[in-house]
């Protein structure tokens, strides 16, 4: 180590920073922390707000789809009910018509039989006629 190097080392000694340096750095660091926390909170709130909107949109979509499906099912059930009713009415009408025919036939046969039995029970009348 030369004398010149010693002089250089002495000239480049550590210096004290200006008074209050550490306090100023700590104050700026606290501000930095606060800003970062605020921005994190803001990001979190933003994220939550976006999610809230998404959830709301999803809920609306679910309600719309469910209502649509419900209406469709109800309409289908009503249509099936109507069809069943029509079929029952048709069946009743057919049955009624058939019943009338049968009733007519029965009453027709009954008349003939009555005539014949009348003749059998009163042969004189037939002879008289």
């Amino acid at each position: 180590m030369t004398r010149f190097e010693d002089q250089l080392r002495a000239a480049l000694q550590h210096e004290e920073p200006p008074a209050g340096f550490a306090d100023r750095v700590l104050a700026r660091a606290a501000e930095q922390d606060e800003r970062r926390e605020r921005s994190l909170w803001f990001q979190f709130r933003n994220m939550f707000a976006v999610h809230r909107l998404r959830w709301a949109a999803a809920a609306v979509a679910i309600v719309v789809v469910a209502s649509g499906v419900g209406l469709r099912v109800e309409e289908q059930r009503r249509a099936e009910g109507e069809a069943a009713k029509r079929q029952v009415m048709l069946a009743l009408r057919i049955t009624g018509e058939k019943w009338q025919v049968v009733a007519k036939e029965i009453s027709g046969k009954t008349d003939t039989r009555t005539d014949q039995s009348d003749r059998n029970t009163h042969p004189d009348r037939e002879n008289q006629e």
Partner: protein
Amino acid sequence: MSSTSLGQVAEVEFFPDFPTLLRQHQRMVFSIALHLVSDRMAAEEIAQDVFLKLHQNLFSMKSAAHIEFWLRRVTVHRAIDYGRKHRNDPDVALDELQMPATEAQNSDPFIARRLQALVASLPEKARAVVVLRYQEDLMPEEIAELLEMPVGTVKSHLQRSLAMLREKLGRTLGEAAL
């Protein structure tokens, strides 16, 4: 270096405390910046920025030695960047440079001031090498790692800078002073 062994011991569980680190390293960081930019206000600004950056990255620090290395490196780079940005500022005469307020101990105050001014006149890389060698007592290998340059380049910067400083100081004071 004692801080290196401390750092190695503390590597297992290292919980850095920012205010303690700030008080421990403020002289070093401020002095590196001051000797590189030769302006007390600019040096304080650089030192504040360096510590704020440390505060942001505190939990990525692995040891005390890592913090010391990181602080030196970031301060040198910030100071060099500052010098590049203000390269076109009006030239200041060497004697007008805002060098340390207190006089260097155990040395002739006039020689110390003159040497500080001469160091300030060196090219930026050479200045950084000289400051790290004679202010921080780092070996050329450590300086090479810190400045990311070959050891040979560090040594040649040192030789050339010392020769130039010696010559300029000799011209001012006369050979007898050296």
